């Protein structure tokens, strides 16, 4: 029933979904890893990235679409990263409070972000398809796979490599990992924790914004997208292990492969199967596949 071209299509589609999940969850994970805060507003940063990118695409729509597809997400990510720095400033009030306060606080941020974005960009789904279409399609059998999806897969690989290089091979990355594993000891070794927090938020928000910006040609920016995206990212992060970028990567791949299989067999169970998988992983490994015990 499923011939080779369909199989290829499904595999590429699965990688595409895994890319979406990773792009969204990476920033959430980086911030949790270092600050031990579950930033529920991460979905808002994602959506903000989508909206900002939409505006940038419109503003520069006369430029080459392929060029835009690379530059606009970087710029949008940077802008959202700066917003993230501002966010970090307000987050300081809850660093020392119990987790329920942190969750309430970041949930409040979701509502504030949603209102502000509604005031600026309205409620209609906004999307910039010209970029999506500029990439064209690749024929697979009698199907056509959109090449922009391949571009998103490539961006994700690049983001993954960048994160790996940054965390494992740079001085700042080493410091960030040190703060993630032993916060107090790091300060006793001369590390300015506050600055590391700012850098972390910059990176986390940048990744969220970049994710939103890269996807806006496919997924419209629309009220409610913040929460929907957050749920998927959260599942991936919990499966992979909170605070582990590698976990987010593997979690995204596993989740997506599972989703594709479910979609072939029982399409109604799409989201349900993801939750079920999350519960199953948590039963076997309460800290996720790559999470470290506290």
């Amino acid at each position: 029933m499923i011939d080779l071209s369909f199989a290829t299509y499904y595999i590429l589609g699965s990688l595409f979904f895994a890319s979406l999940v990773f792009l969204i969850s990476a920033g959430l994970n980086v911030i949790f890893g270092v600050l031990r805060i579950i930033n529920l507003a991460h979905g808002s940063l994602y959506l903000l990235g989508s909206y900002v990118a939409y505006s940038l695409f419109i503003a520069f729509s006369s430029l080459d679409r392929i060029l835009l597809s690379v530059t606009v997400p970087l710029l949008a990510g940077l802008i959202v990263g700066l917003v993230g720095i501002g966010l970090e400033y307000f987050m300081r009030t809850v660093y020392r409070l119990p987790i329920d306060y942190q969750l309430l606080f970041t949930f409040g941020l979701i509502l504030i972000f949603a209102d502000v974005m509604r005031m600026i960009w309205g409620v209609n789904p906004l999307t910039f398809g010209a970029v999506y279409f500029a990439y064209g399609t690749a024929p697979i059998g009698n199907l056509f796979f959109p090449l922009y999806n391949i571009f998103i897969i490539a961006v994700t690989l690049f983001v993954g490599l960048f994160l790996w290089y940054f965390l494992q091979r740079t001085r700042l990355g080493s410091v960030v990992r040190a703060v993630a594993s032993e916060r107090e000891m790091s300060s006793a070794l001369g590390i300015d924790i506050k600055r590391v927090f700012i850098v972390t938020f910059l990176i986390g928000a940048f990744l969220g914004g970049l994710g939103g910006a890269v996807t806006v040609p496919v997924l419209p920016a629309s009220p409610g997208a913040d929460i929907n995206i957050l749920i998927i990212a959260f599942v991936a992060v919990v499966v992979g292990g909170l605070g582990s970028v590698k976990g987010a990567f593997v979690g995204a791949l596993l989740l997506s492969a599972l989703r594709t299989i479910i979609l072939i067999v029982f399409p109604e169970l799409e989201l349900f199967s993801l939750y079920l998988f999350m519960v199953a992983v948590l039963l076997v490994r309460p800290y996720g596949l790559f999470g470290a015990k506290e």
Partner: protein
Amino acid sequence: MSAKDRRGFIKTVAAGVAGLAIGGIGGFLASSMNQQPTTTARTETRTVTLRETITQTVTGAASPRTTPTTPLKVGVINPLSGGGAPLGDPGAKGGLLAVELINQAGGILGRRIEVVGPIDTVGLPDRAVDAVTRLVQQEGCRIIIGEVTSAAGLAIADAADRLGFLWMPCEVWTPRVFETRRKFTFRLSWSDAAAGVGAALMALRIKPDVRTIATINQDYAHGRDNWESFRSTIQALKPDVRVVEELWFPLYGLTDATPFITRLMAARPDIVQSTIWGSDRFVFYRQAVPAGYFRTVLHLDTCLTGMDGHNRETWPDGLYAGSQYNRFYPPWDLWPINKEFNEAFIRRFGQPAFAEGAQSAANMFTNFLALKQAIEKAAATVGGWPEIDEVAQAMVGMRVIGPKGIITIREDHEFEGPQVWARTKYVSGVPYPIVDPNEVVTFPAELTVPPPGVAWREWVRNYKIRAIT
């Protein structure tokens, strides 16, 4: 049947309009008031309004009641955030516009309307019930207007009879709303049952030899009921039609549509029925266009809520779609009141009721027109300001003329109006798709709306094309 029907429809509409002096929406309101038998016991002087051009006479009623001098409080609810906002927000604006115009023209029987809200329900049942309970118990509202999602709508309909408030939803298409007899709920919007029947008729028109059908929909009451009505109707008319694929995804939950698109294409159905709305539709169409889906699959969109804001990337050329009223413009001359309404909306809010929300704005606007008309009708009967159940009684059988055309409120509180189905296309000079005037079909209400008191599921299952009288 198409060309003939269309001419017939326009003729009917024209006849309705002929009696009206069209001079802007205010003029329309004023002139529609002229038609009303008016009865008020008020004598106080008023500030100069459009309405003062109308002579009010007090007819001798048995027990004249005084009209309260306080404004009439009307609660407005709608999803203003979350995935329902693209419909809820313009919907609320359509309601506010109606209130402003009615107040400018002197209110209802001289009584101003005061909107409490709009209150955000996020389209969720619990939030919606919270909102209406607060509106009734704390604000003293006995009339509440709005709500988009079927999930929230079912909960509000229950609350309306329990708490005793008149409720008119903004959308809420599920036929389940009227599976229970409702005292206070009036829906001036088509049901999924009617939409599904219309879709089946349209499917047979564009593909008379249809043998296989498929669907992709959001997995909740609206998607399920719409599909059930479509499938049952088409199978009643052509028993050999087979379902080859059914795909469901959670409301607002579509991200990567490629697996769904692949499955639908692999199933090779003659027609795919779909009633996806909101951002999910953007996601699906965006990804389906380059995949070649629309080139190989005949896709029937049964949820045409608006098209401006769409373009070739989110709305394919030549897509067949259906709507509960002829809201299409340009050409504007199809239904002038709709034109006036849209122009008034743009004047008031600086931009059109874009894309998904155009119909919601018209629905909410019509709700207020109907409310005004029902209160005035009831007042004429009872001789003074009516109680809420008297207003509800007055609603039944009422004909309402508004941006949606001429609609009738039936004894079971459902709306009865013609459906408009069409092929959409792009023309130069208009950035969004419009209806191809050569391919418009209207189905009269008798063909598509289950009669009062008949269970919709039974009706569609035994559907027959009846002679239209």
